[in-house]
């Protein structure tokens, strides 16, 4: 009997006009979103390739000519766009793409590590029109379509009179409930599976994208996560349908849940986390950096002054004579170099502590926002899918850590190679920054266990709730 009931449920949904509409929506939007996402990725990739090419030539020129000044003040690096941003855009347009290094021992300024000039800042039109990716289609449109599909799975049958008929058969309620859940879930899965298949087909038909084997595995996992996300909506749709006796009430209740899950909870989570763990703004960091630099530079100046006075009777020299001596001897004289190394190290250490403190506060705020928002399936699925697609926070954090490590190498290299004026140092052994994200799939899943678990629990809760509600449903 269970098999017959499941077949009946499947036939009921597959032959419904709504199924056709949802199927058409999935069939149209899924490949379209992947196509649009791929075009955006290729556009960003072209910009990246042009920028990298220009910088490579620029750097080669500096190293060949021994242009120390240019190397020390104008070195930049561009972040490579992620291929899976075609599916899950995440933060890839909002995060900065360029990072610069700047070293000048005479005024101690090293900007805080930051990536600037995001895709949106470069071309705000992309924000004005909005970016279409598979994640948006699944999270907003398909979730609504799934609710449309399931809102009347129980109460619709009651209104139509067929529920009483089934209840008159010698079938246990539990069998009936399980058959309904299974049939409905299978019916919802068909268009979704087809949508992901079409998306994969579009990706495979775009060889320029350069999707690797590990990317395909991630895409498969992404599809699974999106599937669980939509199952949450499906199960809650059936549950709401089994809680009321009118289709309209069920649908409106589900619409309210959809609005709260998609808009209210995630934004409330962000605002609450900002209140609980406020983070100083970049401008406060800039103020601290200016004060620190002034203090350190003053101390360094005082020590240098003592050295100049002892060696050259500095106070008796004219400004021009001071300028000549300072200009010629600053780099050669070891005591002066030691003073600068000492105070630069002091400045860099304290600056790094300030930046590290702010990063820690931001991480705390972000972790709270992600934890609170995981109550909503949107929060949970966004956290997992962006990390899977390498367009989330953890990738940016790893990149920033790698950049900070490289920054230490860069400062050390420049300090060691600084030559007196007129001399061109040998820069042939300079190593430019290179980075490739090496996080494995297992590490991503382990790192996102909490939101994944949340998503699974919500699905289980929805199914359990629907099961119990159907068991208790008044079919009269």
């Amino acid at each position: 009997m269970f098999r017959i009931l499941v077949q009946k449920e499947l036939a009921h949904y597959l032959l419904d006009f709504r199924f056709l509409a949802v199927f058409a929506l999935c069939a149209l939007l899924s490949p379209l979103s992947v196509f649009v996402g791929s075009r955006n990725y290729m556009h960003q990739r072209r910009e990246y390739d042009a920028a990298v090419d220009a910088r490579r030539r620029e750097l080669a020129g500096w190293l060949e000519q021994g242009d120390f000044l240019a190397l020390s003040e104008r070195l930049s690096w561009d972040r490579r766009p992620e291929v899976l941003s075609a599916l899950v855009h995440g933060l890839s347009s909002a995060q900065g793409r360029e990072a610069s290094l700047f070293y000048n021992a005479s005024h101690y300024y090293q900007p805080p590590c930051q990536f600037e000039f995001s895709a949106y800042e470069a071309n705000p039109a992309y924000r004005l029109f909005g970016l279409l990716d598979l994640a948006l289609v699944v999270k907003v449109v398909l979730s609504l379509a799934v609710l449309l599909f399931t809102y009347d799975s129980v109460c619709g049958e009651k209104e139509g009179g067929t529920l009483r008929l089934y209840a008159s058969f010698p079938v246990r309620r539990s069998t009936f409930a399980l058959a309904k859940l299974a049939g409905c879930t299978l019916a919802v899965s068909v268009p979704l599976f087809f949508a992901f298949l079409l998306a994969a087909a579009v990706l495979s038909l775009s060889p320029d994208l350069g999707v690797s084997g590990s990317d395909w595995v991630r895409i498969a996992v992404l599809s699974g996560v999106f599937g669980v996300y939509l199952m949450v909506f499906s199960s809650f749709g059936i549950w709401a349908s089994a809680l009321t006796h009118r289709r309209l009430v069920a649908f409106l209740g589900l619409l309210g849940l959809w609005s709260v899950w998609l808009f209210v909870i995630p934004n409330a989570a962000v605002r609450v986390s900002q209140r609980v763990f406020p983070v100083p703004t970049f401008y406060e960091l800039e103020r601290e950096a200016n004060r620190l630099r002034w203090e350190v530079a003053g101390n360094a100046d005082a020590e240098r002054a003592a050295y100049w006075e002892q060696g050259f009777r500095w106070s008796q020299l004219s400004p021009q004579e001071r300028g000549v001596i300072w200009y010629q001897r600053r780099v050669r004289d070891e005591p002066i170099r030691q003073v600068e190394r000492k105070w630069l190290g002091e400045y860099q250490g304290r600056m790094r502590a300030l930046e590290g403190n702010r990063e820690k506060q931001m991480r705390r705020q972000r972790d709270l926002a992600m934890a609170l928002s995981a109550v909503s399936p949107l929060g949970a699925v966004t956290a997992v899918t962006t990390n899977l697609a390498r367009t989330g926070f953890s990738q940016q954090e790893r990149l920033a850590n790698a950049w900070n490590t490289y920054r230490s190498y860069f400062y050390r290299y420049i300090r060691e190679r600084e030559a007196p004026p007129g001399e061109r140092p040998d820069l042939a052994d300079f190593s430019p920054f290179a980075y490739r994200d090496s996080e494995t799939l297992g590490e991503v899943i382990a790192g996102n266990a909490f939101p994944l678990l949340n998503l699974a629990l919500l699905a289980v809760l929805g199914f359990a709730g629907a099961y119990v509600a159907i068991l208790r449903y008044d079919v009269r």
Partner: protein
Amino acid sequence: MINHLLRKEILDQFLSLRFLILAALAWLVVGVGFYDGIAHYRSSVNAYREAQTATEERIQQLRDADGRISPTRWYYAELFGQGYLAHKPPSAMSLFVRGLAPVLGRTLRVKGGFTERRLTRSPVAEAPILEFFPSMDLGLVVQVVLSLFVVLLTYDAICGEKETGTLRLIASFPVPRDQILLAKLTGALAAVLTAFGLPLLLGVAVVLALPDVNLTGSELIRLGMIAAVTGVYLATFTCAGLLVSALTHRTATSFVLLLTFWVAAVVVVPRLSLIVADAALPAPSAAEFEGRKRVVYWEEDRARLARCIAWARDYEGATGRSHWVSPEGREAWYFMLQETKQQQRETAVSQRSRLEEAFRNRYDAWLGLAATMARFSPAFALSNASIRLAGTGMDRHKRFLRFCGAFLDRQHMWTHKTFLRGGLQRDHPGKYGAYRWDISDMPRFDYHDVWPVEDIRAAVTDIAILVFWGAALALGGYVAMRRFDVR
């Protein structure tokens, strides 16, 4: 009879459970939207105040830069190399329509040397979590959520009555079809504007009463226009609901068709139009443009340095000693620097202007094409109009960038003039006056928002398109109702 019909339609809408639930949801969503908007605005104002304080402290440091032991400190390190930060003030209108404000840069580094003429430190760059989820920007709430609610209020206006049998009854009365439609339209509009317009208006009133929100007269007029265009947008979707409801005989079919229209208008068409525009007229690369500007500057700078080195060599050849060792030599050097700097500036400005014009023309053509196609979507027309009126789009940003460009030119020339003056005073105090570190005449970054009428004129096009959409859909509904089979 029309009065009876009107009364019946209005009561039908207002007394339905659907209206109650959707109105409650609208109050919730709009309320959260206003709260989020206030929080966003306050954090922007906070950040701006901190930024201004940091800048004032920095300028005070620059004033105190003299007296340092290092001879270059007073000039190169502080003014030429580091400079200070200048900031774009937040717009109070971003409270209502955030537009592009979260992703546009707010800060410019002002220094004497080469400065990238681009703004950084957008709110999203500083707090990427803001971009992680769909925001509760009121503009987005109206565009996405409220339009969906309107669809739910109107999808069964006609076909629903047919399914229940009451439409046949009404049609049996001596009432023209257009009066039935008019009554339905009025009832639906009344319900839509009450359910969704009231929380919006109340929210605006509450926000305006806040002590830290001060809108000027021009801003209030623009806010009024945004409210009007929001009303037109909701009315457009109301007409769409009535049209589709009059085209079908089943409520389920009507709803699915309207949902498809909603997805196409809100999600697909605006985004697709960019892709189509890109295929027809590829967008110019901003990175390439910035790179070319940098190359122009550095090439000119290299050429200038080469001229300076050549001059120094010639001077030494003619006098037998370096220019740096004598006051006369240094005086000549400073004047030569000023002359070459002026030449460099003129060449660079001319080349940069040509590059900027070429880029701007291509960009505007691409954007214009994309916007023209996207205007097939009423959602984009609303978004474009309200962003223009709120000043949270590209127009205000470009005005600010133009101001920054002109200011940077002035700052650049002032820095070099100050360097020249300082150098001459140090070497020839008798001729040029005693040396004194004084930056009191440094240009001050003082930006004030202007609200040009062009923004409103540009928004009027989008408003007209929305009105056209509404009229076309209403006309379609009228024709469909006239032909509707009530049996």
